């Protein structure tokens, strides 16, 4: 009986010469996909860079590019952008750090806040939130202002306008602050999660108070996370387009991204050269921040990951507990709930007015959304494009993960870095490069769905690879190696071991990509058109020439769809304990 245990499975013969490899192996397919994605990322950038250096563009174009760069208005816009992002960024860093610390280390922790805060930008698209704030805080007709004035009136203080004015520097910085904080929170909280709590416990047992511990032990050890946070805030802030468009332009505050989009999308003929001239500034800022981040990380002295993920006892905040909690809840209200209420309120009016009366509410704006060909077409297109785009991106991401994880070499690490470029270089630069490279010769993809689809995949491939890589690591190397030693080749291992186990993570990633693509504004504003409308394009169109109630209705619709998807993913995540 025992000898039969080692009977080899009957087989014709065991060769010691290499088997003939089939023409297209799974590994081959993965590499082809990787090559296509790398091409889609690098070609537009290289072509744009060459154009900036004068290769492949005519002298007039080059002249216009540099003329735009050296214009006085460029300096003004740069200063405006730096001020807005800088001041708001400092606030966002502080708020993000405080909330992250509160949720990770103290007893002010709010479970659902900890999970939802980083996802807020996904719940409510930034343009919807910006429009919501306009409806709330316009100095005269803003609903919040009306409310405050009424309340103040009852205590004898009469005001004819204000007190809040969203179309102002403070208003703009406030909006940027709301937008940037979740990103700061995300990087800092994940930094705290991998920090050894023993360091802080040592401080507290030496007699330091909670805030002193935070200031003198936690913050310095968090250097790399803080540096990453600064970089993220700078890149997200410098590429932000929807908020300055809606809030800044009416206040006379012009920033670079708005002007770049305007040059590409609204000037006829499309002023690509001018857009490139302004893009030089954005790229310079991003590179500066990147170098700053590397300097901060390299100077060492930061705490290493303990690896055990042991949770320390929560710090008792005493009388500070509820104020911190209220600050967190207040922030979430400001950034998501309030603007949504503003949108809903206006969407139910027949025309935007400060005199909000419950008797004159109507659903006609929602009905008209479906009547309007452009809006309905845009909604349909966005859903279809997002479904296809998210699928393509996740599949590509999974195959790219296979390439990068199968063998850690300089080559695969470089490729991994390239795939992350669209996230580091900001969406606006990638979108401009796409216009330069693919709209005209030799591809002539201008005004097609193809260019939109390619742009979406390229813009969101970093997120796709992030989710698929997280899913892959959750499976663990040994499970795939066990499949190999059991006789399965790469494709079989992928199909029978990796895919089923990665599926929950991939599905979650798919859903979040779906939300990101439907809510995309940057690429949509420059690459979509009247023939190929998508939601981002449509909502901008409504902003410039449509009625506010209809705009509000679309904003509510976008938020509802996005929220449903994100909440479903969060519920699934808890159920299946996914890594996200």
């Amino acid at each position, binding site marked *: 009986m*025992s000898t039969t*245990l080692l*009977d080899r*499975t009957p*087989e*014709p013969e065991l060769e*010691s010469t290499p088997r003939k490899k089939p023409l297209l192996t799974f590994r081959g397919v993965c590499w082809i996909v990787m090559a296509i994605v790398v091409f889609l990322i690098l070609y537009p950038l290289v072509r744009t860079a060459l154009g900036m250096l004068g290769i492949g563009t005519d002298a007039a174009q080059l002249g216009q590019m540099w003329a735009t760069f050296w214009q006085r208005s460029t300096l003004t816009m740069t200063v405006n952008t730096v001020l807005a992002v800088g001041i708001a960024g400092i606030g966002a860093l502080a708020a993000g750090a405080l909330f992250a610390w509160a949720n990770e280390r103290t007893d002010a922790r709010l479970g659902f806040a900890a999970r939802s805060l980083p996802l807020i930008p996904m719940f409510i698209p930034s343009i919807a939130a910006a429009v919501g704030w306009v409806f709330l805080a316009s100095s005269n007709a803003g609903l919040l202002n009306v409310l405050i004035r009424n309340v103040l009136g009852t205590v004898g203080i009469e005001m004819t306008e204000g007190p809040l004015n969203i179309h102002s520097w403070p208003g703009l910085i406030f909006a940027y602050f709301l937008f940037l904080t979740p990103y700061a929170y995300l990087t800092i909280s994940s930094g705290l999660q991998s920090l050894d709590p023993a360091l802080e416990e040592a401080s507290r047992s030496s007699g330091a108070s909670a805030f002193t511990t935070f200031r003198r032990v936690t913050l310095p050890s968090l250097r790399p996370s803080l540096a990453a946070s600064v970089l993220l805030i700078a890149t997200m802030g410098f590429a932000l387009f929807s908020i300055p468009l809606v809030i800044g332009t009416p206040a006379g505050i012009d920033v670079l991204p708005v002007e770049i989009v305007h040059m590409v999308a609204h000037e006829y003929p499309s002023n690509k050269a001018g857009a490139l001239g302004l893009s030089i500034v954005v790229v310079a800022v991003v590179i500066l921040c990147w170098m700053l981040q590397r300097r901060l990380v390299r100077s060492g002295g930061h705490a290493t990951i303990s690896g055990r993920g042991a949770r320390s006892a929560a710090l008792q905040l005493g009388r500070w507990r509820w104020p911190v909690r209220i600050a967190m809840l207040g922030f979430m209200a400001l950034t998501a709930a309030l603007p949504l209420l503003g949108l809903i309120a206006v969407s139910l009016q027949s025309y935007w007015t400060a005199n909000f009366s419950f008797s004159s509410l109507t659903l006609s704006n929602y009905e008209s959304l479906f009547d309007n060909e452009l809006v309905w077409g845009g909604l349909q297109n966005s859903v279809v494009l997002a479904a296809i785009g998210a699928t393509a991106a996740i599949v590509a991401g999974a195959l790219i993960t296979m390439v990068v994880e199968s063998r850690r070499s300089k080559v695969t690490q470089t490729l991994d870095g390239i795939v992350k470029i669209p996230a580091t270089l900001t969406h606006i630069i990638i979108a401009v490069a796409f216009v330069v490279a693919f709209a005209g010769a030799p591809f002539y993809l201008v005004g097609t769905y193809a260019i939109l689809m390619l742009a979406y995949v390229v813009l969101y491939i970093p997120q796709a690879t992030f989710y698929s890589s997280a899913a892959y690591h959750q499976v663990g190397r040994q499970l795939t190696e*066990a499949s190999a*030693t059991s006789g399965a080749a790469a494709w079989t291992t992928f199909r029978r071991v990796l895919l089923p186990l990665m599926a929950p993570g991939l599905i979650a990633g798919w859903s979040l990509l779906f939300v990101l693509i439907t809510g995309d504004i940057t690429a949509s504003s420059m690459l979509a058109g009247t023939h190929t409308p998508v939601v981002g394009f449509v909502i901008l169109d409504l902003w410039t020439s449509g009625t506010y109630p209809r705009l509000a209705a679309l904003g509510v619709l976008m938020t509802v769809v996005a929220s449903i998807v994100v909440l479903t993913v969060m519920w699934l995540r808890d159920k299946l304990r996914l890594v996200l």
Partner: protein
Amino acid sequence: MSVLSTRSRSSETGLGTPSGGMVEVTGLQMDYLDSKGGTFTALAGVDLRIPSGEFWVLLGPSGCGKTTLLRCLAGLEKPVKGTVRIDSAVAVQDGRVLLEAQERPVGMVFQSYALWPHMTVFQNIAYPLTVGPRSRRPDRSYVETRVVTVMEAMQIGHLRDRKIGELSGGQQQRVALARAVVAGNKVVLFDEPLSNIDAKVREQLRAELKSMQKEFGFTAVYVTHDQAEAMDLADKIVVLDHGKIVQVGDARDIYYSPTTRHVAEFIGTSNLISGTIEVENHDEAMGRRVASTAIGNIPTEVGNLDDDVIVSVRAHDWWLAPDSPSATNGLAGEITSATLLGHYSDYVVEVDGVSVHVWADDLPWAEVGAKVRVGFDQSKARVFVK
């Protein structure tokens, strides 16, 4: 039973001891690129020949290359030089990989057992029979019979439809082993499968593993850093250090006759004392060649005059007695530490400026500060050139 079986052969026949299952490695070298761009040599020319049906253990400290060697056998790492033969198949020829991991006739049991959580026990074990080139796959009835046979042999037949998460550590080990042998692999590789298990359970699982290997007769190549485990399981132990094999032998050889100081240091608790090769009493004509140390002169043939050497004497080869004015045996010393370790105690005694570990029965008078006399059996001392 020959490896060159025809398709029509049923699995019930099969007599005699299995042939094949031999592992041979020649000149294996494995380099890694480290984070600073230099190369780190994990295996620096390894030669090994493991006969069929034996249980061999690769032993050594972290970073010695034992896991790298195992993974080269499995095909999970690709060496830069050398040849690997498994059964009669050449897996790697002069640094060229001829057989990928999935093509090699080896099974592997991983540190975490690596059982797939989305499959049942049956599906896990049946997996190797359901993958690979289509033309070679057996039909369903064969798979069913074979898997059941193997499961029964390992006494896990009743776990067929269970999910992996419901199994105990011991059951998982058996499932992992069943999966490794179900396709008829005559060589099974083990990558420290017991290192995450509690001490008491570990001993039990070790015993089971040993008996299954004996019963089923596969060649086992087992990696561990635990010397007690190695000595318990192995027919032969391969001690590795810094990418080289430093000694191959059974437990006795390794323990009593270590060939290098590294082996001596790694196995058991040894006292290592430095010394120099001299001629005793400087009597060139009559004097013996000895290693002159703080604990005395040990006769030895090793090395040349004036060489610096290390003398190794195991802790339990020492004796301990109370000091008294009339005592003349051994060396005088003082206890600086006394630790009860179960059925024996570990005493650290300071003798002539060196600290020596002495294992002896628990002696009530042997407290810290006590004056003692210690000595050792000179024949048990080993001398190594530095």
